[in-house]
């Protein structure tokens, strides 16, 4: 695995992109990796899109802001328009299938459309779609031990939401499984 892995999580505010990133970051910290989490901020949030950039590394992280990424996890069209071109060649691009109008066209990277909302719906918790994406990602890029993801979840979720940890856990698993049976999600 390369020294540093840069992941951008992007979508609408409500879709939990920021917490997705925080879960990974927290888990990486638990594993004593160097980690930084950088959100988009300010007026570009008007209109509702948000993103965060997580860098997980074995060495001290210089800049928390970079312009190209190893992985992009995208939950809406505007974010896809913005970030498809920013994935490094050979990198990974995941997107939520139902949330896009134009399918990404790049061929020099791995691209997967994940039916996360659909799967989350099956779990009767639309909010966990982001965890489905996360599970899928971690299967593709095993940066972190699953148990540490769960530990991180406990840190990131406010106490009043801890009862949701099981369903989040399920969602992660679903994502993992989807990633294993690629054909159904591959474009």
């Amino acid at each position, binding site marked *: 695995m390369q020294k540093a892995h840069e992941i951008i999580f992007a979508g609408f*505010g409500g879709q939990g992109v920021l917490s997705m990133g925080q879960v990974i970051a927290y888990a990486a910290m638990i594993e004593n990796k160097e980690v930084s989490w950088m959100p988009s901020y300010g*007026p570009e*949030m*008007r*209109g*509702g899109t948000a993103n965060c950039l997580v860098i997980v590394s074995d060495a001290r992280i210089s800049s928390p802001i970079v312009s190209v990424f190893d992985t992009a996890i995208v939950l809406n069209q505007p974010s896809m328009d913005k970030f498809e071109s920013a994935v490094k060649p050979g990198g990974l691009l995941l997107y939520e299938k139902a949330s896009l109008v134009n399918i990404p066209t790049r061929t020099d990277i791995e691209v997967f459309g994940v039916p996360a909302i659909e799967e989350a719906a099956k779990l009767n918790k639309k909010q966990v779609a982001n965890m489905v994406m996360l599970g899928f990602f971690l299967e593709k890029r095993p940066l972190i031990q699953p148990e540490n993801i769960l530990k991180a979840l406990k840190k990131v979720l406010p106490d009043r939401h801890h009862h949701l940890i099981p369903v989040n856990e399920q969602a992660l698993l679903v994502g993992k499984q989807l990633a294993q049976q690629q054909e159904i999600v591959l474009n």
Partner: protein
Amino acid sequence: MHIENNIDGLELVYKRPETLTDTPFHYCPGCGHSVAHRVLMEVVEELGIQDKTIGIAPVGCSVFAYHYMDVDMQEAAHGRASAVATGVKRVRPDKYVFSYQGDGDLAAIGTAETIHTVNRGENILMVFINNGIYGMTGGQMAPTSLVGMKTSTSPYGRDAANVGYPLKITELIAQLPGAYYVTRQSVHTSGAVRKLKKAIKASFEYQKLNKGTCFIEVVSNCPSGWKMTPKETIDYIEQQMFPMYPLGDIKVPKQ
């Protein structure tokens, strides 16, 4: 199911004004700012004063007003729009000058400029968008936030004992002799929008006659800051905002 339009035999009765650029608004879905922008520009179009109008944008969510309003504009420092407007109007007395400001901008950091601009009776239109919150910076408490209102800097609700009651700056400036026409309107229904438009039109006509300061408060919404859907903001405006900020004229020219 989706209905196909059929416009044969119909006439155009409403379209986006030419005085708005084609740039899509960057505002959050359902935000009142863009309605206020549009109505302002409709009046400029109808009065045919696009070439004589100079607008001052604030620092606030409407900081980019000049992306949408197709008139000459200046971007003012936070709270200073009315001072900037004063500078413009004093050297261009024959132009129509308006400032457009949020509640943090006009009623917090800009309080001194607001009071003194009106007290001097500057011949300008001040449009005051009161959404009871600091929208741009992420939903902090504004001087106009309602008692008990939860914001990112009043997470337990605004506590009047600690930070004071909502500041009704419009009622304050209405007391000043320099204020010629002072009214409070809104944009949450089509009827309200019609009234707002009349108020803006009247203000520009008064400005032409050098009557003094016209001041229009627009009780608006902030779905993002209020953490509501646009639809929910309509109720909040009517049940929560209006009791504190009742609509209507506050000072009208005496004949």
